[in-house]
């Protein structure tokens, strides 16, 4: 289909023909052809007067141009005559010609009524032109609308991914994949050199053998180029002079947009296509800028969350330091109990949020020991009843300390109850069974294990195997059998922490 056909192809010619017939009283065959005389309308009917006339003219050296006149008149050699007028007025290049053919008598230039027939022909040509123009305008509006739909779709998709954002790079990876898919790009990449992060997704139309090298180029020269230019860049042509310093020797098409943190370019979002794919268009560029913008906001959130997390970790580290400074022999106890508790939690398939809370609770479970006199804490040997009372308040005390931190609300029950006994009779509340929060029951197992295997002021640590025997023995009385079973399954897989925590083994291996 030629472009001219497309330009007039959707005009409602039948309507125009009826109007023309009404104006002229009929008797003329009306048709339209492109600027070279190829029929556009009506369809090819070899028998029709219009088609026969056009066929006859083709190859006869006939020139369609009206030379700036509104119409041209020609007497044909078969007793017929023809008039044609350009569709679109001079000096514009004609989209095509409107042609009327009929008996020579009907189209006699000297006859009365010829002038009004010609006016009707010109009016019809003008009406076709007007309709065509409106249709083109409508089309361009529709295409503009299509581009907006694309944008909206993209923003909504990004939005639905972001809604569950809780930090971490996974969401960025997902978004990069979305970008490759939505933009139908061979490669999409988010490059954040200051954090040494490059996330990429491929949606290859054909293999790309030097993908690693492409990513290196993105991280290096392209990133620096955009950082300096502070705007999006599209490179399509093989001869683009910017290729001299970006993507040297690689024929790919490239589209990249900056991500801002404050006023500086922190990262870039880049698309790479094989050279046989269509050029990156203005609307592609717009879309990538929209995405880059969303990424920037997300990056900002990510940074804030990271800062918050670092702060939390540091506060917790300080609290642990405070406890361990008082009780040097239990150094590392909090971390060990935490690692083991989290392993048990995962073995029990706890949801991620519960694992998170378990992690905090287990690392902070002994924070209440800050309130216990040093003499009691580090006393070798058995404690008197009064001293033991001091020890017993530490779980409540821990709860008191941590309740000042809003964020740690969910971990308070675990801290309070980690010394309850499964059959009841523990402290501080003496509750039993499932009334004890699961996280507290888990921490109790890890705590008991670590208390046995680590060395104290008055004794050396026991071996892993001895500790397991003891834990099995107290399962169901002191400890929750479910948590114990999960712990034993974890131990069955010979977890790395047995070695990293330097726990003794009796059965000779290691």
């Amino acid at each position, binding site marked *: 289909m030629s472009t001219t056909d497309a330009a007039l192809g959707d005009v409602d010619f039948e309507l125009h023909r009826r109007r023309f017939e009404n104006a002229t009283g009929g008797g003329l065959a009306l048709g339209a052809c492109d600027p070279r005389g190829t029929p556009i309308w009506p369809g090819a009917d070899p028998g029709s007067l219009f088609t026969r006339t056009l066929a006859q003219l083709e190859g006869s050296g006939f020139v369609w141009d009206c030379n700036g006149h509104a119409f041209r008149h020609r007497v044909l050699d078969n007793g017929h005559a023809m008039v044609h007028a350009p569709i679109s007025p001079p000096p514009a290049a004609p989209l095509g010609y409107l042609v009327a053919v009929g008996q020579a008598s009907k189209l006699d230039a000297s006859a009365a009524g010829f002038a009004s027939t010609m006016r009707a022909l010109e009016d019809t040509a003008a009406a076709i032109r007007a309709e065509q123009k409106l249709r083109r305008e409508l089309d361009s509006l529709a295409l503009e609308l*299509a581009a907006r739909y694309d944008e909206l779709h993209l923003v909504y*998709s990004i939005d*639905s991914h972001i809604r569950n954002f809780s930090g971490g790079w996974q969401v960025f990876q997902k978004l990069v994949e979305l970008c490759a898919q939505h933009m139908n790009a061979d490669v999409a990449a988010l490059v954040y050199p200051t954090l040494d992060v490059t996330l990429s997704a491929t949606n290859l139309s054909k293999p790309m053998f030097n993908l690693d090298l492409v990513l290196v180029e993105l991280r290096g020269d392209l990133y620096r180029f955009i950082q300096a230019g502070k705007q999006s860049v599209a490179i399509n042509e093989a001869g683009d002079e910017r290729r001299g310093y970006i993507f040297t020797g690689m024929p790919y098409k490239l589209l990249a947009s900056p991500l801002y943190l404050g006023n500086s370019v922190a990262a870039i979002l880049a698309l790479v296509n094989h050279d046989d794919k269509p050029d990156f268009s203005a609307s592609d560029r717009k879309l990538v800028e929209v995405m880059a913008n969303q990424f920037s906001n997300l990056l900002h959130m990510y940074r804030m969350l990271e800062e918050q997390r670092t702060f939390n970790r540091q506060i917790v580290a300080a609290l642990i330091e405070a406890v361990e400074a008082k009780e040097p022999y239990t150094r590392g106890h909090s971390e060990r109990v935490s690692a083991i508790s989290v392993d048990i939690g995962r073995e029990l398939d706890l949801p991620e949020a519960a694992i998170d809370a378990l992690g905090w609770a287990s690392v902070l479970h002994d924070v209440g020991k800050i309130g216990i006199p040093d003499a009691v804490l580090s006393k070798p040997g058995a404690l008197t009843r009064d001293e033991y009372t001091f020890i017993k308040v530490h779980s409540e005390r821990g709860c008191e300390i941590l309740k000042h931190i809003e964020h740690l609300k969910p971990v308070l029950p675990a801290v309070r109850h980690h010394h309850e006994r499964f059959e009841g009779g523990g402290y501080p509340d003496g509750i039993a069974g499932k009334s004890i929060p699961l996280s507290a029951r888990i921490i109790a197992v890890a705590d008991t294990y670590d208390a046995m295997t680590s060395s104290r002021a008055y004794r050396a640590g026991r071996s892993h195997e001895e500790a397991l025997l003891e834990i099995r023995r107290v399962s169901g009385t002191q400890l929750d059998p479910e948590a114990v079973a999960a712990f034993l399954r974890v131990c069955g897989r010979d977890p790395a922490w047995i070695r990293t925590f330097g726990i003794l083994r009796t059965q000779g291996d290691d």
Partner: protein
Amino acid sequence: MRILIVDDEPHVMRVLTLCLRREGYEVDSASDGAAALTRIRSQPPDFLITDISMPGMNGEQLCRAIHAEFPQRRFPILVMTSMTGCENREWASRIPNTDFLEKPLSPRNLIARLAGFAARP
């Protein structure tokens, strides 16, 4: 490749028609479920894209009617549904060869999906 679009919103229809024609697809349209059924009876399309909320017979009813009348149909159905809403989608799982297309609709995305379908054996 002939595509039948069923939607009562003229702007959606216009945009889709234009974008698909530019990609070389032949596009036919119907503004409600009943009209769509008539079209399918006279000439089954290669693809059917339908909106879900329409006056008269809606998208779900149309899909059920098509499945009842043409249980062996070859052409895939794409149902346009809101990305943000929470319409029930479960009914579609019982009608084979039916999938969802999320609104706001992206013509770019649709064309990629169609190409993916066409490439399927």
